[in-house]
């Protein structure tokens, strides 16, 4: 059974060491795909993102999505990390890493996970503008919902 790591946390993570963990000491991994989602400043407009989450359900839902990926692709390891709380431009928000013997499974599993956690993981982003006006909740995009149909 492939090693699964799912974490929901306020603190930052190190993408390089998280990626290393999936290949260290192994000889069967032929492909490692990692994705790191960062907070961008929207051309200088954003001071931060506030990420609200549903504790308990967030971990459960990420685990459910990750387990589905493990069933669908022959992975040797899978890591999913999602942060919550106040995140400033340049900081990490989310990390997905999929390891497999072959690249197609790793690419597809990482893509699948990101599509699903965009619209099926209980997190909500609020944009905090630099001008100190009250924040605005990010609206879910129809295109994110449509991407799920690919799977």
């Amino acid at each position, binding site marked *: 059974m492939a090693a699964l790591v799912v974490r929901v946390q306020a603190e930052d993570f190190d993408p390089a060491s998280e990626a290393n963990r999936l290949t260290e000491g192994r000889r069967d991994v032929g492909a490692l795909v990692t994705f790191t*989602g960062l907070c961008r400043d929207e051309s200088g407009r954003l001071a931060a993102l506030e990420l609200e989450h549903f504790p308990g359900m967030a971990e459960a839902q990420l685990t459910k999505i990750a387990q589905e990926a493990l069933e669908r692709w022959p992975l040797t390891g899978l890591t999913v990390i999602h942060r919550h709380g106040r995140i400033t431009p340049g900081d990490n*928000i*989310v990390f997905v890493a999929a390891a497999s013997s072959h690249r197609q499974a790793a690419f597809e599993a990482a893509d699948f996970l990101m599509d699903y956690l965009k619209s099926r993981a*209980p*997190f*909500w*982003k609020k944009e905090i503008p630099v001008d100190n006006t009250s924040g605005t909740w*990010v*609206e879910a995009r129809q295109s994110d919902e449509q991407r799920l149909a690919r799977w």
Partner: protein
Amino acid sequence: MPALPDHGKPAQGREDMLIRYFAWVRERVGLDQEEIDLPPAAKTIADVIAWLQTVDDAHGHAFADAEAIRAALDQVHVDIDTPIAGAREIAFFPPMTGG
């Protein structure tokens, strides 16, 4: 906890439901969560939304656009026609924006 309409005694064996709110639903209601003695007629998530709309102005504002509301029953995402019988907790929130 806002003043809620009096619906008399809870139906037999029925305990108060924990209702939790997230994101702009939470902000509009003005609460993270509340224990509510739901009327026996509220049998599905949609019934609960319809009833919450009538509680007060804050709830009315939060639940005005029922189509924009998503729900979880005991922390599992469900459709609005899902029966609530046996559940301990209902959460209401806007469409998720993770990732």
